[in-house]
């Protein structure tokens, strides 16, 4: 995860923080399990077209046109979508958290490398 030439030895605090972040990814399924316990649905203003149809009795035309034009590889952090079993959801969530850690770190290091190297 670390680029050798840019990484000074990881400090103790940094190591602790990374461990904390990995723990966050491992317990991230709380973010779907807890709302389910409380019978809570989507965030306000983030409904899918089906939910909107239930709420309004119609799907706004422009919204319908744009809503699904991007097919994300892992929609809503869940492989197999909303109908998957809870086990699949939990596993997908943890995996998404870990993939997120890798993807975000990679992009930040790439940007930093380009920007900071040229700058100094």
């Amino acid at each position, binding site marked *: 995860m670390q680029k050798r030439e840019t990484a000074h030895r990881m400090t103790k605090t940094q190591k602790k923080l990374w461990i904390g972040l990995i723990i966050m*990814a491992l317990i991230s399924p709380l973010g779907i399990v807890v709302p389910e316990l409380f019978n*809570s649905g*989507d965030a306000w*203003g983030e409904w899918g077209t089906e939910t*909107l149809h239930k709420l309004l009795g119609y799907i*706004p035309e422009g919204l319908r046109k744009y809503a699904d034009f991007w097919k994300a590889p892992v929609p809503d952090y869940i492989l197999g979508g909303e109908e998957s079993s809870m086990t699949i959801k939990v596993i997908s969530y943890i995996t998404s958290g870990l993939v997120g850690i890798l993807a975000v770190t990679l992009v*930040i290091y790439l940007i930093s490398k380009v920007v*900071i190297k040229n700058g100094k």
Partner: protein
Amino acid sequence: MHIPDGYLSPQTYVPLFGASLVCWSIGLKKIKRELSTKQVPYLAMAAVFSFLIMMFNIPIPGGTTGHAAGAGIIAVLLGPWTAVIAVSVVLIIQALIFGDGGITAIGANCFNIAVVMPFVAFWVFNLIKGKSRDPKRLSLAAFFSGYASLTVSAIFVAIQLGIQPLIARSSSGTPLYAPYPLSVALPVMALEHLLLFSIVEGVVTLLLFKYFMKNEPELIYAETGNGT
């Protein structure tokens, strides 16, 4: 708070893309000037933290969900412009890989969560802190920087959603995009954040601030005199 595709008219998302582009270019310049390679791991950790905290959906029983975003504490620790870049990277990855937030709405979402939120947090933190070094005052500043920043960010989202029925309607008069007017969007978004989600953001901001005050005080941007 991640606006999906289809909720915003082009008249809304195009200008917001422009605004975010301007902020990205300023943010990258600032990073180039101010950030040292020693701080890069913190930049990465900050962005990762923001990504993960947004996965923790907080329920309103029988209602909607929401979440903290972490952009406030990043602004306090690493500076608002650094937060712009860190959180924008997160939002773009969320949109592309996880479909969390629309592609057409990347500009809007980055503006609301990665620009408005860090700057409100930084401003509120400095406003409450003043010249004081009193730990209680600093804690108060940290809590409210999180609390206010998420709330203001949510209000920006509510305004963008709420003006859609005014901007575009079909020939039969129904809204083309986000269907609820300002009179619904504003109170719902403001209240659910004021009463729950922003409190969580405030507590998270406070706890992390205290942790860094104790362990890495020299890191804190808003405390080391870099702050304005």
